[in-house]
């Protein structure tokens, strides 16, 4: 084999290896920025809105069950912020900014609670105020473009025909069931434990 051929082959493999590494990094980065937890056989998609009173009401009870199910690896949980209220996209954006720094379930549930609490304050409607709140509570965040995640949210909302919050879609053995309202969702999740 000529020196030129060997050099070209070497270069080709180097390019291939770097592309593969970059691809893996991108996938991991995406995974890191999407609120998905666990790898269990049952997929649970929880659709909530920070400004929706029934969502707020069910959050403490739902959190405990979800943490338990994820710990047991019984479910793959997808948390989908649903933009029903005019300020929901702003809150969702900051939630995603924060999970970019730390996407552990316990941590993101804390962020959800902080944002739920903030949504009760009628003045908490600007990015400056949410940033100040995050600083005050010691929540690290990094600004990035969440459009790919919003596109994924839209695809899920459209696929599951979500028209109200809170809604929960449970996919088990290829069968999909939708539950609406706090009581229904809690019962459905309890059935999975």
């Amino acid at each position, binding site marked *: 084999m000529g020196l030129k051929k060997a050099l070209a082959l070497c270069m080709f493999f180097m390019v291939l290896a770097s592309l593969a590494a970059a691809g893996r990094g991108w996938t991991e980065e995406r995974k890191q920025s999407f609120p998905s937890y666990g790898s269990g056989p049952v997929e649970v998609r929880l659709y909530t*809105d920070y400004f929706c009173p*029934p969502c707020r009401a069910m959050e403490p009870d739902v959190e405990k069950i979800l943490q338990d199910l994820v710990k047991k690896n019984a479910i793959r949980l997808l948390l989908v912020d649903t933009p029903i209220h005019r300020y*929901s*996209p702003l809150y969702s954006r900051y939630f995603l900014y924060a999970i970019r720094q730390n996407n552990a379930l316990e941590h993101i549930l804390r962020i959800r609670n902080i944002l739920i609490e903030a949504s009760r304050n009628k003045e908490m409607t600007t990015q400056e105020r949410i940033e100040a709140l995050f600083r005050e509570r010691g929540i690290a965040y990094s600004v990035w473009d969440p459009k790919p995640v*919003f596109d994924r949210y*839209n695809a899920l*909302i459209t696929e599951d025909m979500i028209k109200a*919050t809170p809604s929960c879609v449970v996919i088990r053995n290829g069968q999909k069931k939708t539950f609406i309202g706090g009581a229904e969702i809690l019962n459905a999740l309890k059935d999975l434990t």
Partner: protein
Amino acid sequence: MSKGHILKIVNIVFPAIGIGLMVFYDACTTGCSSLQGTFMGLKLKVIGIIFMVFLLVLSLPPGGRNADFVRRLRIIFLAGALGGEAVLVRFQAVQDVYCYFCLAFGLCILILSVANFTKVDRYWALGGLLSGIAAFAIFFEGSVLPLYR
């Protein structure tokens, strides 16, 4: 109490109820629906409040020489709103998502329309009804799925 007095009360109470319904429209108890709509770019909630305030204003001044004109104007607007409500209720039925505040608002309009209807103004009422249906069929934009834009 005379029929005229009852009608006056109806023309004050039901627009007030309608305004109240639109003000408390955002309140949700078991679930928060994403059902939304606009008419010529304006939120239906705003249109509803403006409409009911307009009806209240019509019922406040004493009739006098303009009584016939005011009555006819009220009938035309109520018939138009009834036509609009027909389009809105159809939209909810097609989407299988119901907004109870909006349906109650529609009921207020129906009661006001029945109470104010007079045979003399039937052609004006029919014109208003058809105009309302046409206007909402053209300018109403409804959305059911809450999506990021």
